[in-house]
C-alpha cells in the first residue's frame, strides 16, 4: 500500500507540449514535469525515468532531461548528485523526433519515475517509490 504517492498525479504539468523548432523545422518536442514529493531531491536519486508518448516508449537516446538551466542525457541522471530538483522547479523533458508532434490532436504522455528517498535508510535500506502519471496534452 502506497502512501507518499499523493503527488504523483502532479508529475506531468498541465501545460501544452511545445515543438522544438530549428531553422523553421521541428526536430522534437518538450513538456514539463514536477518531482512528486513534499520535498526536493537530488537528480541522482532518480533510479528510472521512463517516457511514453501516444503509447510508444521513447528510446532514452532521444531524450534529454533539462533542469537548473542545464541539459542532461538520461544516462547521466544517476551521477547528478549535485543537481537539486526543487519541488517548484519544473524539469523539461525534451524528445528528439523528426517533425515534432502534430498539432491537430491531443497527445497522451506517460511518465514513470522510480526514485530513491535518500534519507530513509532506517535499517540500511532505502524506500524506493515507483510513481507514474499519464495525461493528455495539447500541442502549442
Amino acid at each position, binding site marked *: *500500500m*502506497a*502512501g*507518499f*504517492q*499523493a*503527488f504523483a*498525479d*502532479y508529475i506531468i504539468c498541465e501545460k501544452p507540449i511545445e515543438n522544438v523548432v530549428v531553422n523553421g523545422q521541428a526536430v522534437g518536442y518538450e513538456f514539463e514535469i514536477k518531482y512528486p514529493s*513534499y*520535498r*526536493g531531491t*537530488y537528480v*541522482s*536519486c532518480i*533510479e528510472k525515468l521512463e517516457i511514453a508518448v501516444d503509447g510508444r516508449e521513447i528510446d532514452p537516446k532521444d531524450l534529454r532531461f533539462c533542469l537548473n538551466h542545464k541539459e542532461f542525457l538520461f544516462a547521466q541522471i*544517476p*551521477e547528478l*548528485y549535485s543537481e*537539486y530538483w*526543487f*519541488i*517548484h*522547479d519544473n524539469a523539461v523533458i525534451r524528445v528528439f523526433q523528426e517533425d515534432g508532434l502534430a498539432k491537430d490532436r491531443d497527445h497522451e504522455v506517460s511518465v514513470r519515475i522510480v526514485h*530513491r*528517498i*535518500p*534519507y*530513509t*535508510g*532506517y*535499517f540500511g535500506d*532505502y524506500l524506493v517509490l515507483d510513481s507514474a502519471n499519464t495525461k493528455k496534452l495539447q500541442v502549442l
Partner: protein
Amino acid sequence: MADKQIKYAVTLYSMSCEYFTGKYNLEECLKAVAEMGYKGIELVAAQMIPEYPNPSREWMDEFVALLKRYQLEPICYSAYIDMGIRSDRDLNEEEIFQCTLNDMMYASYMGFPIVRTQHAITPKIFEQMVPYARKFNVKLTIELHRPHTPSVPVWQEYMRIMDKHGTENLGIVPDFSIFQRTPHKLYLELAIKQGARKPVLEAACRIFEEGAEVEATIGKLDSLSEFEIVTIKDIYSNFYSNSADVEEMRTLLKYTPYIHGKFYYLEEDQDDTCVPFHKLLPLIKEEGYSGYISSEYEGHHFSTEVSSAEQLHRLIKMENRILYGV
C-alpha cells in the same frame, strides 16, 4: 496560548499540499499559521529553500523578514541526513559532517535555536558536532521517528552521548508516529480507492486488535487479493507492531526540547484514533514538560483533498481540550 507551560509550534511541512500545488507560497503558509495562532515555526529546509542544500544569504534574510512580518519565531530548522543521494555509495563521514555543520550555520544565521537532524548522523559524528553546537548556540537534536523506537540500539548510544555532554546543546525530537496504532481514515480510504475491500480491511483490523500476528490474520480471512494481502501486511507493520509504548515517552522527556505532534486526520471535536494524543499529552504535562509540541500534519501523503489549515485548527482544539480541558 501565552502562559501555558507546554508551548505550541507548527512545522510548515504541515502545509505540504498547499505549498506543493502552489495554492500557498511560503509567505501565504506563514500567514495561514500565524492566523491560526501559532507563534513558533519549523522549517523543512529541503522543502522550501530553492537553493537547497546551500541557501543563499538573500533567501535567509528574506525568510527572517517574513517571520518578523507575521510575528513568528524561528524554532526548529529541519535538516536531513540524505545518506542515499549517490548511486554508488552512501554518504561518507566527511560529507555528513559537512552538511550538518552547514545546516547548523544556516540555522544559527536565521535564529533557529533547534536543529533537527536524523539518526543516520551516527553517534561518532553526532559527538563531533558537540563543540560546534555550543559555539553556535544551537541545540542539535535527532528525530526519533517510526520505524525506529527508543529500543533500537543506536538510541541508547545517542542517550549516552547526551548524558555525557549534557542536554544544553543536544536533544531528541520524538515524533509521535512511534506511538501510532490503528490505521487512520485517510489510509483506509486510499487503500479502498486502490482496490482493497472495506469489510476485509475492517475485519483484519479487528483481528489485529485482538492481538493476532500478521500471518495468522491473513490465514483467517478468505479469498484475499494480492493487493489486500500487501495492504494487510502494511497495516500490521505500520499500526499494530513496532510501536513504542506510551510509557517510553517518560524516559525520552529528559532529552526532549521539541516534539513532533504527528497526525494524519482528525474529525471535528474528536480525539485522534491513530496517534494516542489523549494518553501522551497528559503524560508529558504530568512530567512537567515545558518545551514545544509542534503540529505535524501528514495526511498529505494520502490525500490532497483535505484542508491542512482545518486539520491544524482541529489539532490545537484537541490539544487544548486534552491538556487544559478547554
